[in-house]
């Protein structure tokens, strides 16, 4: 039965996928995508249908498992934050080459303005790179509808489909009207055509020709897409192209405009005929898109053109950062709303590690060693709550680049001659992308000290399961670590002397050591206690 629900964008995607007959979601937690998988994990429908929803070790294993489910004939969803696309780029791009059997939809949640990320990359480039269709919803209702259309399109074209959202879509709620009927899951139906799936050059060349030959059809589908809508008032000579969520910011302001000619783009590759037609009747086109100037650049090229194209590159909109109703309003040529200036009394309230968090004791110990013993020590950080160790009062980190880079960068710096190098990495990040780097370091017995700060969970995204729980010593020893240089400590202020001593000794050792400070995340612990008390 059709019903109305107040849904987060992420939840609308999850529910849409379930209603499209999803058989498995594969994902690694990452803001702002995490809630898609969490919704499916808690869904009674998913439980009833035995939909796979356990967290994966990283985005690459997720993408590959989804491709396997598709090979077997069923529908799979892959979810990640934008930088996760880099991790799964190999299977993602090559899934365009193999194509799919059961439908595959990949959700990339971008984070313009970097609310909780290290860069502002725009996943639409990945869709173009892999030469597959990309959808970009403007509303939560779109998100719910589009994921279902995306599965249909995926199976009809035999290609994966990318669904790109931004933070403001993923983490914004609105009322969604759901379908009156729910599609059944696909039956097991493994692909029998090995030539589709074995990307030996002899097959891959054929697949590449097929994918390339399909491109004009994809443009045509975008031109006909019900998601690429036109909206006109008066005899507008001012064309506006608005992509995904940016359409909302345009529509928020159009009541104050005399005339306009808007094309909303929510399906890519570009609807070329629609754009050409707009160009023939307008004097200028303003491109409003959240993220990087993906559409604007494609319209511009490098040679002169007959009409003016404005957007992030021309300076009509800010070159970086997320769009909002205010900067779009100014770009539309309207006067900014009257408003008060910010108060000078207000100060910043930066995020900080929780009181009682084990990472705090780890940083205190590291700083003791640096202060009292080896001031030349450099600490290479990683992605997680403990990245906050870069800020006061700890100010302990020298680097933080991507998942797993702490270990490999520490090794590279040691290779270059840095005497005292520490890598600090969380438990979940270690299994995501740290294990392979540790093997490199072990194989050369690199003189670095790796600290796996284990809080038994993926804390920063809200406490999801950590793939290597209870296996960290076994993993390190299995990779070949010398047992004498593996230590487990409990990061509590009362153990400060011991932890400081262990770090000092291992920094002095001219080989590889791993120290595992282990104590449960204070957030997951207090949630557990609350649950217990409620019983």
């Amino acid at each position, binding site marked *: 039965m059709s019903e*109305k629900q*107040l849904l*987060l964008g992420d939840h609308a995607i999850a529910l849409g996928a379930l209603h499209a007959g999803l058989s498995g979601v594969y994902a690694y937690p990452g*803001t*702002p995508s*995490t*809630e898609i998988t969490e919704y499916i994990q808690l869904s009674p429908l998913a439980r009833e249908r035995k939909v796979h929803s356990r967290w994966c070790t990283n985005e690459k294993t997720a993408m590959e498992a989804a491709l396997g489910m598709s090979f077997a004939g069923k529908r799979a969803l892959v979810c990640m934050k934008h930088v996760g696309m880099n991790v799964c780029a190999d299977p993602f791009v090559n899934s365009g080459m193999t194509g799919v059997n059961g439908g595959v939809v990949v959700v990339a949640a971008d984070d313009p303005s970097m*609310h*909780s990320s290290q860069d502002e990359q725009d996943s639409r480039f990945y869709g173009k790179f892999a030469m597959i269709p990309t959808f970009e919803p403007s509303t939560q209702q779109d998100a719910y509808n589009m994921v279902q259309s995306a599965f249909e399109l995926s199976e009809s074209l035999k290609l994966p489909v990318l669904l790109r959202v931004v933070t*403001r*879509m993923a*983490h*914004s*709620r*609105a*009322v969604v009207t759901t379908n009156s009927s729910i599609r059944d899951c696909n039956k097991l139906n493994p692909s029998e055509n090995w030539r589709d799936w074995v990307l030996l050059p002899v097959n891959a060349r054929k697949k590449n020709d097929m994918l390339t030959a399909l491109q004009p059809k994809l443009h045509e589908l975008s031109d006909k897409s019900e998601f690429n809508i036109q909206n006109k008032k008066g005899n507008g000579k001012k064309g506006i192209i608005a992509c995904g*969520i940016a359409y*909302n*910011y345009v*529509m*928020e302001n159009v009541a104050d405009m005399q005339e306009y000619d808007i094309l909303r783009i929510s399906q890519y590759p570009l609807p070329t005929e629609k754009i050409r037609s707009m160009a023939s009747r307008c004097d200028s086109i303003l491109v409003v898109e959240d993220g990087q100037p993906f559409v604007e650049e494609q319209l511009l090229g490098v040679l002169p053109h007959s009409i003016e194209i404005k957007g992030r590159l021309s300076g009509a909109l800010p070159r970086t950062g997320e769009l*909002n*109703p*205010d900067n779009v*309003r100014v770009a539309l040529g309207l006067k*900014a*709303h*009257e*408003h*008060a*200036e*910010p*108060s000078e*009394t*207000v*100060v*910043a*309230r*930066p*995020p*900080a*590690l*929780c009181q009682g968090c084990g990472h705090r004791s780890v940083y205190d110990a590291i700083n003791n060693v640096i202060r009292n013993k080896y001031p030349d020590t450099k600490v290479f950080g990683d992605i997680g*709550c403990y990245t*906050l160790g870069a800020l006061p009062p700890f100010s302990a980190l020298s680097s933080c680049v991507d998942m797993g880079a702490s270990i490999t960068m520490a090794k590279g710096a040691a290779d270059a001659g840095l005497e005292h190098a520490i890598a600090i990495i969380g438990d979940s990040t270690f299994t995501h992308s740290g294990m392979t780097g540790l093997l490199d370091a072990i194989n050369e017995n690199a003189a670095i000290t790796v600290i796996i700060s284990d809080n038994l969970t993926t804390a*920063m*995204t*809200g406490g999801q399961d950590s793939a290597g729980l209870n296996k960290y010593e076994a993993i390190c020893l299995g990779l070949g670590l010398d047992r004498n240089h593996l230590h487990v400590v409990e990061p509590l202020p009362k153990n400060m002397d011991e932890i400081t001593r262990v770090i000092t000794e291992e920094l002095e050792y001219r080989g590889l050591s791993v120290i595992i400070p282990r104590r449960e995340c204070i957030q997951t612990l207090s949630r557990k206690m609350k649950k217990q008390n409620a019983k």
Partner: protein
Amino acid sequence: MKRDIILSGVGGQGILSIATIIGDAAMNKGMFIKQAEVHGMSQRGGDVHSHLRISDEQIASDLIGIGCADLIISMEPMEALRYKPSLKKGGWIVTSKTPFVNIPNYPDVEKIYEELRKIGNVILVDAEEIAKANQMSRSVNMILLGAAADALGLDVKTLSESVARIFGAKGKEIVEMNVRALQLGAEQK
């Protein structure tokens, strides 16, 4: 009716519960809703805010434009003042009086009150005191919501029905306590 509301506070203070109740109440009145939240790293003791828009008519943007908010509801006085540029002329601020001091350079709170009062339509609620006096320390946010009911254009009865729906699974006692918190808040003017 249309209300553009900024909800603000510090991570963990319960602004999302306020948003959930208002959202449910608005949905039951058949209104349109958009609510943009902040999740992730920004929650770790940092400032958090949410844009909540309810209207009888379709809403386009998930974000509220600068100078366009009808109302700021804040769990913390400095966090209320942070969004001063968002407030439209003649808009309302309903904020808890109690500062949440987790930074070394927290400003003089009297100065914050003074600036807030200068803005005009401000209700400073001693929500934590009221909660303490009534043994409902976990309902500070509902006291605040009660105090904002008038400015929201939603009556306490409507909000209470939403509290019953949202907190229903937590038991009758929790519902009753939060409904009482709404009423206590509504008496603060």
